[in-house]
């Protein structure tokens, strides 16, 4: 299924329900058998793999609260031994304590295959140049957002990362776009706040560009800045059309979190499709054991069948809803909408980490006392 996204995202509803249930039942069985910590949760909840016969049964899968990945004793979450761990992906929120998700070799192979296939399925990108408004993986090898963007890099002919030492220079970004003009289809990839900074620069300098017919703007990361200032999606799309010449249909956002392999990508209808190896269950904010119907807003729980390193059944601190109605794009299954962070949860994602650090650097720069010019003579 991972390598055939065209078919996987267009299953008949009954087939989708059966396949996602079967995949999650298998994943549950593995973790319940091989992970002592998780087995104890399952025994306490009185659930076994045989209990999951239909999609409606998945609500009983015990969930790991996402904040457990921040705890010093997070090793208890592991199903795979550390010797099998290939990637440690992390995200540091506003609180400063990192959330670390350890992916074993099997999970890493699966998730890279899945994300690569999804990029092809949703964006159809196979060439061109990517202007990455984020640090490179060399600079931040463990940052989940950058890692996910870097998979996209493999589909492109050229690229440039224009955030270095946590500083973003919009003039360099424009220089890169200029150098690729008439040679390659130019794409812009980054967290919304940095695309927003580029747009702000273009607006202030009164520069309007006309990128290429197949150009995309692809975003991942928070829409609410750690400063509390929200970025309106409609305004964002309109400015991209005005200043970059890219129509709204080619502005695509993604939703995911480093603790899960689920990465939901937007189709041209701007609906974020949950891949069929994952299931999103919306839970009542007051009682997270209760699953809410599609369309109802609640806490997002992500159930992911790809994960063999630790149980990929995560209760997030995000609030949103799922939609199970047919999408005009023809893809089936669930779509997800993120609304906000749960009240009391810290703002925590890779984009917030980058923004917080860039801003702190800029504040330091602004406060520096200019050095006196050396005396002549």
């Amino acid at each position, binding site marked *: 299924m991972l390598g055939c996204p065209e078919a996987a995202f267009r299953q008949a509803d009954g087939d989708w329900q059966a396949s996602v249930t079967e995949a999650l039942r298998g994943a549950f069985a593995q973790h319940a058998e091989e992970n002592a910590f998780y087995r104890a949760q399952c025994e306490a909840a009185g659930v076994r793999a045989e209990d999951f016969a239909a999609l409606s049964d998945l609500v009983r899968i015990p969930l790991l609260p996402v904040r457990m990945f*921040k705890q*010093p*004793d997070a*090793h208890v979450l592991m199903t795979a*031994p*550390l*010797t099998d*761990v*290939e990637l*440690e992906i*992390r995200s*540091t929120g506003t609180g*400063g*304590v*990192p959330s*670390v998700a*350890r992916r074993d070799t099997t999970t890493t192979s699966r998730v890279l295959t899945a994300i690569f296939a999804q990029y092809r399925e949703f964006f159809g990108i196979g060439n061109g140049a990517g202007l990455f408004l984020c640090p490179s993986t060399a600079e*931040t*090898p*463990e940052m989940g957002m950058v890692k996910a963007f870097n998979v996209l890099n493999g589909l492109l002919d050229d690229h440039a990362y224009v955030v270095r030492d*946590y500083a973003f220079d919009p003039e360099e970004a424009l220089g890169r776009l200029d150098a690729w003009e008439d040679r390659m289809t130019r794409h812009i990839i980054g967290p919304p706040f940095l695309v927003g900074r580029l747009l702000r620069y273009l607006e202030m300098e009164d520069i309007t560009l006309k990128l290429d017919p197949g150009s995309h703007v692809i975003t991942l990361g928070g829409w609410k800045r750690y400063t509390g200032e929200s970025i309106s999606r409609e305004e964002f799309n309109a400015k991209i059309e005005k200043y970059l010449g890219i129509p709204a249909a080619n502005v695509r956002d993604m939703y995911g979190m480093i603790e899960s392999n689920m990465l939901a990508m937007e189709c041209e209808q701007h609906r974020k499709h949950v891949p069929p190896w994952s299931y999103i269950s919306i839970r009542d904010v007051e009682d997270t054991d209760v699953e809410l119907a599609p369309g109802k807003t609640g806490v997002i729980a992500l159930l992911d069948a790809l994960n063999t390193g630790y149980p990929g059944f995560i209760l997030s601190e995000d609030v949103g809803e799922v939609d199970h109605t047919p999408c005009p794009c023809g893809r089936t299954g669930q779509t997800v909408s993120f609304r906000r962070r749960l009240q009391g949860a810290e703002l925590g994602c890779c984009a917030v*980490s980058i923004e917080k*650090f860039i801003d702190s650097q800029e504040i330091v720069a602004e406060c520096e006392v200019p050095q006196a010019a050396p005396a002549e003579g």
Partner: protein
Amino acid sequence: MARYSPTVVDHFTNPRNAGELEDPDVRAFIGNPVCGDQIMLTATVTDGTITEIRFRAHGCAASLATASVLTEAAQGLPITDLEQWDDAYVTSLLGGLGPDQRHVATLGRQVAHRLVRNHREGVDDEAPLVCS
């Protein structure tokens, strides 16, 4: 070389001296603001010797193992001995580190030195310090 040395695997999986002393004689806290690795040591020092030491750590498996290894190595030593530790020594305590893990040796060396300095000067770390 495997991605993690057997020592790192052992200390990550079975951390020693995890926690925080309630009434320590000295505390040291070092953190990296970008990657988020953090180690805090608390110790009881009697006649210049570390008699009890605990750690709290957040971050990658190698940094958690570093904190655990440090406490095991420091227990029973004159506190000033820790000042002699360098990155190579911390790496050797860990049984070797991969290229992408070497930052934890610096983190470990700095928090050990910080512990000595804080004890000597009678200061306390209330917030994580920046690891260079």
